[in-house]
Every structure is written in structure tokens, then in C-alpha cells.
């Protein structure tokens, strides 16, 4: 194999974070196995007709249904820095001083992305296979019945590997917006394929639905009437018929989908070659800020200034304008439009939470004195919480009395962002989670933001406590690990 590809794959696979992600996928897959008689069910199919999750074919189709959304999301977070790490490490600028074939370089990066995604897919298959053995040891199923539903993810992963590369080369997306764009693209594609029935086949969920219908039809003579993926609540246990899922059938439409995916991937890689910078990118100088030479006294003011300096001026102006407008609009407009838009714009700030300070090893230096480190971390959190409360002030003033659930939510968001940034070491997890939250909110799951719901508020209070434990306990763990 080409040394370039070997190098790319090796450097990706050896990242400690990748091992962590593989472990997370393994656990998640095990949790995605359909069960019967529990309040949280991964997959429920016509419960009045069929006995639920009573054979191993349910495992692979249940896992596939959830993972067609979850695996690309996790995968996107994992691979969406291949080129930026090459830029930041100086390797790409170094290579640009020699005559490098852009096609070879980006093709190897695409293969590196794909290898990482296939690694995650393999972990998912192993975990699902293990669950089949644990849950249904000795129960027969054909290899295709097991692996077939899981293979539908593969064409989408090929597209994702190429799309991640494209977002890192397109000037408009190669900054912070790339991860958010991919997360949004995955969500939109997944839900459009589950909703309309029109099959593009990028995620593979439409193929799973077809397989589900085909399997149900084989038993009942009609298409499926009720399906629930990742639902809660009691499921009727009246059904007594056994539903065996057939493997995915490779018909003309499926081959067409695979061809479309491969063509899209080739197109994205080709476009990446076109858009990859020909000379090293200039370091972003924020001269206007430097020239002002603001001298600030106090840690909180200094931290506020540092965080504000990370946000582009145009974004600050747009956010400020929308924020001012939000005070003058109706409650319905605030909650349905202004709140999600303002909070989506605030991603630029939240993605800095928990890790941005260490870009220049400042946090490492501060950690030489535990007091200074805690002072700085507290200032960081205070600034983020204050910013989030201020951002959501247009909502808060609409309440006739103090809305504790909403205030708790305002506290929870920056704290969770700090915790995730601290653990992952970058803002991609935060970015993806925030995008998923607001995408779900805009698609009707408004209860995710608790305006008055005490129950949801309590959940966020619990998450807040966990985040605080992570934020202040993480360094103790790191220090101990170093000592060992």
C-alpha cells in the first residue's frame, strides 16, 4: 500500500481519542439492542401483532435503525479535523513548499477518513454480534440476516468521509462552521429520508424501512402499520406472532443508491482538490483588537475579553442586532425564532468552552499553580454563564415570575460545554450537541428547552451537577494519571 495512505491511517488510528470513540460506539451499540418489556424501547414494530425483540434478527435491524443517525454523527466529530491537524502541525504548509500532488494527498486523507469510519462500523458490528450471542445464544440466523441491515450504513459513510474533507477545504466552511454544517446535513438527510419516503439513500434508513416493510408483509400480507424507534412508554404486549427480518435485498434501486453515493464521494474529493489552498493559509491577525491594546484589570474581565476576541466581528454585530430586536417581539416569535437563532449564533462562543485557553498552552502553565488554575476556570465559567443568561434575557423578561427550569437550563448549557470541551479537547462535541438540540427544538421537540417544565429542569439540574464534577474533578484525574 502507498506510504502516504499507511501514514494517514496510522496517525488516525493511534490517536488516543479514537480509541475512546471506539469504546463509546461499542457501548452505544450494546445499548441500542431492542428489548421487550422495558419502558425505553429501541425498536417497536406493530406490537399488537408481533412479539417484540424475540429473535436475533431484531438486533441488527434495531442497531442499524439507531446507528444510521448516531454513527455518522459520532464519525463526523472524529474525522472532521484531518486537514486542520495537518495545517496546525505545520505538515501541510511544509508539504506545500514541495511539489505535492493534491489529488494523492487528499485521496489519502479521504482513505484515512474512511478507515476511521470503517473502524467505528466494525466496532458496531462486533458489539452487535456479541449482543446476539449473549441474548440469543444457540438461536440460528443467516449471516446475511445479521450483517445485511448493518451494511446499509456503508455508502453513507463513504459520502461522509468525502464531505468532511470538503468542509475542511471550502473557505466558507473550513473554520468552525464545518462541524455544524455536517451535523445539520446528517440530521436533515436522515429525517428527510425517514419522513418523505423519497429515497436518496445516503443514510441507509430508507433501505431499512423497505426491509422492515418487506419482512412484515411476508407475515401479515400488508405493510407495517406502527413503528417506533427509540421510544418511551408502555408497549402493548398483545402480539404473539414472530417477526423475522430478512436481510437487505440488493435490488436495482439499492445499487443505484450505492452508485449515487460513490459518485457524490468522488465529486466531493474532486472539489476538495480544487478548493485546497495552494499556499499556506495566513494566520488570522486580529489587528483591530491588538491595536486597541485594551488593558483590563481582573481575571473575569480579561477572560471576557479573550472569549469575545475569538468571535468574528460580523457575528457579534448580527447577534447584538437580533438580541435587541428580540425584546420587542411577541412571546411566540421569541420562542419559535429568536431563541433558537440566537443560541445557534452563540455556538461560536460555546465551542471555545473548556479547551480554547490551552491552544497556546496557557492552561498548562496555569495548572502549575492549582489556585491560579481554579481561579481561571471559575472566571471562564462565570463569563460563559453570564453571557448565556444575557443572551437569553429576551426570554427571561417575558416570564411573569422567575422560571427556575429555564434559569437552570441557562446554567447547564455553558457548564456542559465546558465539561465536554475539557474532556474532548476541542469544541466539536459541543457544536454537534447544540446543533442536534436546536434542530430537534425547531422540529417540534420544544420540551428540550424547559420554559416551565419542572421535570426537564430537574434533568438539566442533574446534568449541571455532573458537569461541575467533571470540570473540577477532571484535573485531579489528569494529575493522578501523570503521577502514576
Amino acid at each position, binding site marked *: 500500500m502507498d506510504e502516504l495512505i499507511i501514514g*494517514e491511517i496510522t496517525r488516525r488510528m493511534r490517536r488516543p481519542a479514537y480509541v475512546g470513540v471506539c469504546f463509546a460506539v461499542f457501548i452505544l451499540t450494546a445499548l441500542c439492542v431492542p428489548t421487550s418489556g422495558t419502558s425505553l424501547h429501541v425498536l417497536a414494530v406493530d406490537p399488537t401483532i408481533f412479539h417484540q425483540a424475540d429473535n436475533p434478527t431484531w438486533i441488527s435491524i434495531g442497531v442499524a435503525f439507531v446507528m444510521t443517525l448516531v454513527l455518522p454523527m459520532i464519525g463526523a466529530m472524529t474525522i472532521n479535523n484531518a486537514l486542520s491537524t495537518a495545517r496546525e502541525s505545520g505538515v501541510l504548509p511544509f508539504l506545500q513548499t514541495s*511539489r505535492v500532488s493534491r489529488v494523492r494527498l487528499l485521496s489519502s486523507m479521504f482513505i484515512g477518513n474512511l478507515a476511521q469510519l470503517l473502524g467505528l462500523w466494525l466496532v458496531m458490528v462486533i458489539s452487535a454480534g456479541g449482543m446476539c450471542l449473549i441474548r440469543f445464544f444457540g438461536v440460528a440466523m443467516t449471516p446475511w440476516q445479521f450483517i445485511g441491515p448493518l451494511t446499509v450504513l456503508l455508502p453513507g459513510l463513504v459520502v461522509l468521509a468525502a464531505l468532511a474533507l470538503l468542509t475542511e477545504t471550502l473557505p466558507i466552511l473550513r473554520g468552525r462552521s464545518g462541524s455544524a454544517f455536517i451535523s445539520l446535513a446528517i440530521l436533515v438527510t436522515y429525517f428527510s429520508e425517514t419522513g418523505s419516503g423519497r429515497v436518496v439513500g445516503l443514510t441507509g434508513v430508507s433501505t431499512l424501512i423497505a426491509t422492515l416493510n418487506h419482512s412484515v408483509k411476508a407475515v401479515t400480507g400488508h405493510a407495517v402499520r406502527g413503528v417506533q424507534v427509540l421510544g418511551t412508554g408502555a408497549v402493548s404486549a398483545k402480539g404473539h406472532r414472530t417477526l423475522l427480518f430478512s436481510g437487505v435485498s440488493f435490488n436495482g434501486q439499492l445499487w443505484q443508491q450505492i452508485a449515487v453515493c460513490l459518485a457524490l464521494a468522488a465529486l466531493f474529493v474532486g472539489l476538495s482538490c480544487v478548493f485546497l489552498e495552494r499556499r499556506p493559509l495566513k494566520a488570522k491577525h486580529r489587528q483591530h483588537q491588538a491595536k486597541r491594546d485594551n488593558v483590563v484589570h481582573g481575571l473575569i474581565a480579561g477572560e471576557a475579553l479573550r472569549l469575545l476576541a475569538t468571535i468574528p466581528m460580523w457575528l457579534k454585530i448580527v447577534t447584538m442586532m437580533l438580541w435587541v430586536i428580540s425584546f420587542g417581539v411577541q412571546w411566540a416569535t421569541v420562542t419559535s425564532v429568536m431563541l433558537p437563532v440566537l443560541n445557534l449564533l452563540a455556538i461560536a462562543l460555546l465551542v471555545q468552552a473548556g479547551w480554547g485557553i490551552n491552544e497556546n498552552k496557557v492552561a498548562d502553565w496555569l495548572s502549575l499553580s492549582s489556585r491560579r488554575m481554579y481561579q481561571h476556570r471559575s472566571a471562564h465559567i462565570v463569563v460563559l454563564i453570564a453571557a448565556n443568561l444575557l443572551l437569553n434575557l429576551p426570554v427571561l423578561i417575558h416570564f411573569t415570575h422567575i422560571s427556575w427550569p429555564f434559569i437552570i437550563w441557562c446554567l447547564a448549557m455553558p457548564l456542559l460545554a465546558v465539561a465536554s470541551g475539557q474532556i474532548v479537547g476541542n469544541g466539536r462535541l459541543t457544536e454537534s450537541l447544540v446543533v442536534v438540540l436546536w434542530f430537534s427544538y425547531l422540529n417540534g421537540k420544544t420540551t428540550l428547552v424547559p420554559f416551565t417544565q419542572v421535570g426537564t429542569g430537574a434533568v438539566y439540574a442533574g446534568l449541571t451537577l455532573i458537569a461541575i464534577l467533571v470540570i473540577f474533578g477532571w484535573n485531579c484525574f489528569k494529575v493522578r494519571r501523570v503521577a502514576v
Partner: protein
Amino acid sequence: MEIVFDHVTMTFGDDVAVKHFTATLNAAGVVGLIGPNGAGKSTLVRMLTTQIKPTEGDILLDGTSIVKHPDLLRTKLGYLPQQIPYYPELTARAYLHYLAAAKGLPRVATDEQIERLLGQLHLDAIHGRRLANYSGGMRQRVAIAASLLGEPQLIVCDEPTVGLDPIERASLRTLYSQLAQTRLVLMSTHIISDIESVANRILLMRQGRLCFDGKPADAISAAQGCVWEVAAPIGKALPDIPISAVKQVSAHEVIRFVADQPVIAGAEQVTPTLEDASLAILEGLVMTHG
């Protein structure tokens, strides 16, 4: 091979990093690019290595503009940047193979060259370790090996001795001297002792301008009569003069300074070193231009 800097100017906003730099490099050997921090050396190197385009002027390789045709130079260039590029997850050998493949170098010749470079730079014993576990000096040696991949005709190094211990520095000087027998090596540095013994020619920069272009010996002879030494009690207030060295000797210190006159009583004229000469030129005491 001939490289011509033709009135090269580079500005960043209102800041002029390099102004009307004109020089011709055409013979094999080591050329030292010297100047204090902020003199414009790194900017000039970045323009020469086709990373940035000059705002004005042109850089020509054998008569063809490398600003317009950067690939012409890229095929002949070996570059050692100031910030060492590396992937921490790879071993030295894997990293060098990766870079060689990215540059499209032929496999068989590259394998042989990588083994030779690993030995030459004393990396053969540690090549199995990941670069994340290397010291700064070790990584610097890997970067030097990377810059020599593909037998480049022009080698440009930006502060090549940073992070190296004295033995490594001496060994690097020897290596570059050997390479310079058939190639052009441009070493940009502010540590004059690094190039004193190896450079055939020096280009001295101050505030973005070229203020000396010539042989080290010419710089030294130009500075004759401008370098002084005086013994003074420790802590004695001194006039505001450019001091090139202070050496403590028992109860007093020997101060070496550059000036056109012995501004401190009892100062004696001494033979200049390249460092003294550079200081004298940078301070404007010697008005010479090659």
C-alpha cells in the same frame, strides 16, 4: 542555479516586513541570512519558499518568476521551517516515508536515503519511537532529515539550530558544509556563531532592508577599528553603547563593545569577530554594502 531577489517588498497592512530586497544567489555554498528578531528574515524565507507572494518585486529562479510559477522552485527545494512540522502519532521512519510519498519521490531511492539520513542524524537508534515522545532536539533532527528528502538543490533553513545541544549544532554545521559543496544552502538565523565557520557569504538584514551582502571576512575587515574591550568593576554604570559581550573575570567584568571611538576610558581596540562586525553594521557604524 541562480536565484534573484528583484526589489522584493512585503507589507502586512501598514507594517513593512521586507523592503526592496535585492540580491543574487548563484553559487554552491552556505549563505547566512542574519538579522535581529523582526528584521524580516522569516518573511523573506517564506517568500523564497513560495509560501507567500511578495507585495512588490519578484523572485526569479534561472530567469523564471517563482511568484508566478512556484512549482519550478518546489521541485528543487528542501525547507526546514522554524516551527517543526510533525505528526506526533508517527515514528520518525514512518513520518519520513509519509513525506517522501507525499512529495512523489521514487520508492527505492527514498528507502535508501531515509536509512542514510536516520544514521547521519543519529536517529537510527530511536526511530521506532513515536515523534510525540521525542525531545525538541530530536524532532529538529527529524525535520532536518525531512528537508533533505529528494536531494534538493536549494536548502533553506529557518533557525535550524533551535533546540539543539552543542554537539548536535556542531554536527549540523558539518552536515550543511558537506551539503553546500554541491548545493546552495540558505541559513536564516540570529545566532551568528552558527554560521560563522561555515558561511561563504552573509546577508545582513535590519528593519526589512538588506544592509550588508558579502563575505564574512569582508564584514570583519570593515569593522576593524570599531571593536573595543575594557575591564570595569562589576555594576559600574556604562554609557548607552552597543555591547557585544560581557565576560566576568574575578572582581571585574570585561566589556566588549562596538563604537567608532573608545567611549569608555581605558578601552583597547581588539580584532572583531563576525558577531562584532554584524553588530557594528546593524548599528550603522560601518557603512558598507558588500
